[in-house]
């Protein structure tokens, strides 16, 4: 006979707290074991197991992510994931072979993909939302393909044509699409995302990039001066060319890494902004990631993954996920007991059953 274990929320007073922070109970070491076994089985089964591997990975991450003491759950059926993957693979292989033989077919395949990508985005979001649950209630997503096409194809094209000036709008449209079509049970998410702050994020990126390049150039002169790299005529000197080559390579690498870090920086800031502007019925959200810290985590994750020839990867994934999760909170306006599931017949009307077909990792 064991002493009964009390669960966190049972002893909590009835009054709702001001903020419910999400918690992550997993660890890199634990996930490493799951990852390595998943990998081995995927190799042994020539990739067929990867669908089960995906389900177990998602279940590990969501199942260890706790809100108010309750985990999130991933409910997808691996067999359906496998069917979807085989279908997508077949399409890609056929398109590639066709393109190899006929450039005209290549153009046609590109056009098909442009149409297909928004459809896949909306389907994948639907699949993921429908297969995620908390306290027995599924999430739901009802965004249309056309709107995904606007946010992921048309607006980015406008961004490119306007030399980047309209690009922040594309990003804002994507965020709006993600939030406004999301439901928990019957409760809709909403977001009020003004463009001003989005543009401010990109303004900061521009400033930081300028400072970074200026520092690199200054550093180049300070380090390059004593080596005599800029003195005329010295380049013919023995070995001078090699040093200069190395020097150029380092500068290119620094530039490349710097620009690769823009994406995580924007991602952290956009996540903060969108959660802080979003709500679920009367409940609000609060995200307080520090963009610099987030970028630091991403950068050190890259380094360690490269140094360990990839073995650090599961630890890296856990580290980043933990940071994201632990800097997100729900601001409850009252009890969380009153969310209601979508009725079974309504599910059929929305067409969520068909959503089981396609799963694509989009990395949202």
């Amino acid at each position, binding site marked *: *006979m*064991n*002493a*009964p*274990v*009390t*669960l966190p*929320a*049972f002893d909590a007073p009835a009054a709702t707290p001001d903020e419910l922070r999400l918690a992550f*109970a*997993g*660890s890199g070491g*634990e996930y490493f*074991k*799951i990852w*390595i*076994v998943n*990998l*081995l089985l995927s*190799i042994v089964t020539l990739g067929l197991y990867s669908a089960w591997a995906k389900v*177990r990975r998602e*279940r*590990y991450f969501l*199942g*260890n992510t*706790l809100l108010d003491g*309750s*985990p999130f759950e991933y409910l997808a059926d691996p067999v359906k994931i496998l069917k979807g993957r085989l279908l997508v693979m077949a399409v890609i292989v056929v398109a590639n072979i066709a393109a*190899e*033989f006929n*450039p005209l077919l290549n153009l046609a395949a590109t056009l098909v993909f442009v149409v297909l990508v928004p459809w896949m985005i909306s389907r994948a979001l639907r699949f993921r939302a429908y297969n995620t649950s908390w*306290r*027995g*209630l599924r999430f739901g997503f009802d965004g249309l393909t056309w709107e995904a096409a606007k946010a992921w194809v048309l607006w980015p094209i406008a961004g490119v044509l306007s030399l980047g000036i309209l690009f922040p709008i594309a990003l804002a449209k994507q965020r709006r699409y993600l939030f406004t079509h999301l439901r928990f*049970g019957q409760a809709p998410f909403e977001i009020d995302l003004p463009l001003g702050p989005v543009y401010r994020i990109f303004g900061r990126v521009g400033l930081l990039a300028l400072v970074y390049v200026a520092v690199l150039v200054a550093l180049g002169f300070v380090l390059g001066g004593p080596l005599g790299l800029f003195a005329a005529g010295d*380049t*013919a000197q023995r070995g*001078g*060319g*090699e040093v*200069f*080559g190395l*020097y*150029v*390579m380092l500068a290119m690498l620094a530039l*490349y890494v710097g620009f*690769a870090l823009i994406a995580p920086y924007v991602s952290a800031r956009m996540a903060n902004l969108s959660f802080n502007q979003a709500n679920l019925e009367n409940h609000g959200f609060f995200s307080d990631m520090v963009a610099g810290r987030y970028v630091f985590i991403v950068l050190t*994750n*890259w380094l360690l*993954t*490269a140094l360990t020839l*990839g073995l650090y*990867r599961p630890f*890296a*994934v856990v580290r980043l996920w933990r940071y994201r999760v632990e800097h997100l909170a729900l601001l409850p306006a009252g009890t*969380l*007991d*009153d*969310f209601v*599931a979508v009725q079974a017949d309504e599910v059929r009307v929305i067409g969520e059953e068909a959503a089981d077909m396609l799963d694509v990792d989009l990395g949202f």
Partner: protein
Amino acid sequence: MSTLDARLFDGHTSRAVAVRLSAVAGGVDLERCDGSAPRERLAPTALHWHEPLGRATRRVDLPGGRHCEVACGPALDAFLRALGHQEAGITRWQRSGARVALAVVLILAVGLAGYRWGLPLAARAVAQALPVAAVQAIDVQLLKTLDGSSLLAPSELEPSRIAAIEIEVAPLISGRGSDDPVRLHFRKAPAIGANAFALPGGDIVVTDALVALAPTDAHVAAVVAHELGHVAHRHGLRNLIQASVLAAVIGVWTGDFSSLATAGATVVLGSAYSRDFEFEADAWGAELLTRNGRSPVLLATMLKRLERAHHATDEAASNNAGGGLSDYLSSHPATAERIARLTRADP
């Protein structure tokens, strides 16, 4: 009797109900802590325990779309023991440190074996199975792209010189024991320098600089014999297949954290393959030359001259533009070793 506190959810609302589960003979009793509903007897087979993938909570599905959340810990372990619950094989595998270590070793072994033997064998099988016509379609595209770029320009050789080389090469092409078509192309390529390369489908490109470097037309023919070896072994295709598989595997393994890192690793790992290809093409070319009553030393001489020529250009380039990086990742390394082998092959 073993009992366990849990939270029950009915699947219709997010409201948690505090319940107590008791392991009894013949099943599990479910009882609400506030006594608002009668005690319910569940058969052990009606309970579906989800895979334990975390340390916080575990989910167990109940009949009627309901489920319970249970805190992980000694109480849950004791309860499952009382039920006689057997965890799935994969769970036991994951919990054993030795088996996880075995998985790491197996993956490394599979990776190394696949890299050294599996991928080359598979690429060869696929390359040999592809019809010649399909591969030639690739060649036409490739050559068109190269001709359109600044890399290749029309040859400035005398037509009589080209005709003389073609006469020299003809017996090698007809005597190589294959009916697959081979086409010889001459191009001016200042950026590439003295070189010759074979496209996957049997198109061989010889640069003007290589012809200028060769003491006689027989030397050019010897280089073509080497390229015919690449064609016979379908090295171009195999290289294409191997590089794409390598890039895909490295991308999956590292989570594609950077396309630059993936490309870099692909080049480094792929350079070992191209070394093998060069040796294979040399051996094949030497055999072809010997069969036609010529000496493999012709090819060795050309290798020596090519190396010297490229060394000179590299130095010039590194002095002018700060290059010199091509030295680190040459796809024609071990030239001394190749020359030695070719000299030995001379009867």
